[in-house]
Every structure is written in structure tokens, then in C-alpha cells.
């Protein structure tokens, strides 16, 4: 979807502000929010792509002012609300309704280390041969899907060159919307900075994006 998360190439956000000796969490609640969204019980079929899509549905004005973990909190709430695993009333009160039954299958503390090492893998073997080969010129399609996609606006309609092929991968555009893995060949495409940004860009610079086959056409 064409909203504020697609930040590449925008002006006006000012200087980058690195912090000295930054710790992973600035406040205790950030770690709790991060932990909840990682280790809570998810609805069946939930995917990382749905996660990213839900973050994109945050109101654009809030997206720009909320901290990262505040956005995670929003995602966690949305996941559980849209699956009916919690109700808005329960969320407002911070307490389970008396009718709710307590589950006993949430992730245990001793499973965290393995969980972080055994994430779902997005690679999927594909029988059909890749359409493009390394060195081939391609153009990123001009497409404006209202749902989730991983083709940023700044690359749409621009030409580049395939520099590597990664095999089949789950297509986020499908997986974010309950349409299964729908795997496609994934490629790294190199775009000259001048192709993306015009004559003012440095002639030696380039930007690389990982793009699925349906995002591309021969150039």
C-alpha cells in the first residue's frame, strides 16, 4: 500500500540522530512490548508478512510520531483483535471477560532460545525455472497495490540488472492477506543511482533491492 512506511527517497526528516551506547530497550515497557509480540500465542496461519502489513495500517500521522515499540504494541493488539482472541472491551479493561476460557499452551521460557534459532524459513523450492538470469536487464513494474507489497515506490518503473537469484520465496503480497505462500523466484536487482534519482546522483553509486519475479518484466 502507498502509505508513509514507504520512506525511501523522501525529504524533510532531518538529521540522523545516533545515540551513544544505546541499550536494546530505553525503558522497561519497550522490552515487554517487544517480548509480547514475539512470544505470545498467534492465531493459526499468522505470518511475518501479515505483521508487516498490520504495521503499515497504522494511521500515517501516528506512524511518524510513535516509537518503534509503540508500533509493535499496536500490531500485537491488532493481531489479537482481528482474530477475535481478545475483545476491545477486554483490552480497555486489561482483564479477561468472565466468559473467557484460559488457554494453557503459550510458549514456555525455556523454549525462547530455540524459537529464536528456528524461525519459519521463507525459502520454498520451485519446480519451474527462473524467468530471469544474472546479468539480464529488467524493469520493476509500475504497480500500485492497495495491499501489502515489498516493491517500494522509488523503484517502480525503473530499470536495473539482475545480480543474483535466491530461489523460490514466499510472496509477501499473498502471504500478508491469507492467500498462502504463493512462492516465486526472488532476485537481487541493481539499479544505478542515476536511474532512480536523476542526474544529480553520483555516477558510481547503486541501490540493490530483493524483488520477486512478478514485480519484474524484461527491459
Amino acid at each position: 500500500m502507498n502509505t508513509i512506511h514507504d520512506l525511501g527517497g523522501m525529504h524533510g526528516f532531518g538529521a540522523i540522530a545516533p545515540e551513544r551506547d544505546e541499550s536494546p530497550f530505553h525503558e522497561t515497557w519497550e522490552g515487554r512490548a517487544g517480548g509480547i509480540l514475539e512470544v505470545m500465542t498467534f492465531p493459526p496461519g499468522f505470518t511475518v508478512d501479515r505483521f508487516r502489513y498490520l504495521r503499515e495500517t497504522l494511521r500515517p500521522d501516528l506512524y511518524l510520531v510513535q516509537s518503534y515499540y509503540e508500533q509493535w504494541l499496536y500490531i500485537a493488539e491488532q493481531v489479537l483483535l482481528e482474530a477475535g482472541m481478545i475483545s476491545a472491551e477486554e483490552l480497555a479493561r486489561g482483564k479477561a471477560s468472565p466468559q473467557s476460557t484460559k488457554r494453557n499452551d503459550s510458549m514456555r521460557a525455556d523454549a525462547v532460545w530455540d524459537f529464536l534459532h528456528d524461525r519459519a524459513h521463507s525459502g520454498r523450492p520451485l519446480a519451474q525455472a527462473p524467468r530471469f538470469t544474472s546479468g539480464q536487464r529488467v524493469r520493476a513494474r509500475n504497480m500500485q497495490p492497495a495491499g501489502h507489497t515489498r516493491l517500494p515506490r522509488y523503484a517502480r518503473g525503473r530499470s536495473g540488472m539482475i545480480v543474483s537469484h535466491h530461489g523460490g520465496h514466499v510472496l509477501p503480497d499473498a502471504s500478508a492477506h491469507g492467500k498462502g505462500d504463493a512462492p516465486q523466484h526472488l532476485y537481487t536487482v541493481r539499479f544505478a543511482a542515476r536511474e532512480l534519482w536523476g542526474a544529480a546522483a553520483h555516477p558510481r553509486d547503486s541501490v540493490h533491492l530483493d524483488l520477486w519475479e512478478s514485480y519484474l518484466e524484461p527491459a
Partner: protein
Amino acid sequence: MSQHSHSHDDSVEMARHHHIHADLPPDPALRVKALESLLTDKGLVDPATIDAWVETYESRIGPRNGAKVVAKAWVDPDYKQRLLSDATTAIAELDLLGSQGQHMVALENTPGIHNLVVCTLCSCYPLPLLGLPPTWYKSAPYRSRAVLDPRGVLREFGLDLPEHVKIRVWDSTAEVRYLVLPERPAGTEHLNEAQLATLVTRNAMIGVAKVTA
């Protein structure tokens, strides 16, 4: 009279404040507390499991992992070749793979090529090798400008690269995760692998800094 106008100003200020905030969600610390207690109540999360997750990212998974990979590549030319041709397998040799680290690509910086990693669409980052990303990496200024003005971004980090250097920016749009293999600094010939690893910084492995001796 002055007392009166003072309280009038205060109430205007408060009204403005309320107007701005009426539309915003409440304090995140309170929201998190409410959500954690609700989910605990419903058996959808175990607070001890959240503790373990926080502890893992505070003390067990961080840039030291990536630094081990870099230092090994600096001292072992065969390992470096394996890392550059198939980073996923080479990193798995060190038992360092995990969340978002399944499809790794290592990018070698040389005197003529400088690599810089960003995620313009969200905040994808090689978690098992670098831990959780710093706030600036997730911020709008970095995500918007790293692709458009990488030289300006690098200058802000104190790195003014000569004209002849090619800058390659990598926007992490899929599940491929990128690790920059920085140049080994001059004058480190006497250091062993473990000593070298202590020189390697997170920022150098993202590509916004060089490693210095």
C-alpha cells in the same frame, strides 16, 4: 489580575494539550501493562517467557556475534571465501544463525567499494548477528535518505568517502539479510582473531563506519 490572566493562559494551554492528545492512544507503558496482564489472564502469554526474550536480546544476542564472523574472515582466507560465496552456510558453521538470519549475504568492503545496508519499508536487520537494531536504523531520517543520499548519510556518521569509491546500498526488501564485511584496519597484523573481534563495531557491519585499530 495577573493571577487571573496566568490561570487563563494555563487553561488555554491545557485545552490545546488535550485537543492534541485526545486523538492519540494513551501512554504506551500503561497500554503494555494492560495488554500483558490481559494476555496472562487468558493464557496467551507467560510473563516468564517475556523475561527470557528480553534477557536474550539484552545479553546473549548482539553485535559480538557478527564481530566473530568478521574476525574469522579476516584471519582465515578460506573462511572468507566461503562467507562471500555462501554466507548462510559459513555463518551456520559458527552456530550463530537464528531469527531472520536464514538467508544471509556478506558484502565485502574494499578500497574501491563501500556497502551500506538499510530497510526503507520497515526495519529488517540481521538479528542473530547484530541483535536488535538501534533506534536510528529504524528512524525516518535514515530510512528515507540512505537510498537517496548515501554519501550525505555517511558524512553524518563521520565517513567522507572519496569520489572514486563506488557506494552500493542494499535495501532489505525480502528475507535476505545483509552483513557488511568491513576492511581490516592497517596495523593489526599482530592481533589474533579474538582481539580483532573486539575492534569490529555494529556500525561497521551496517556500513556506516569503518573499523579502526
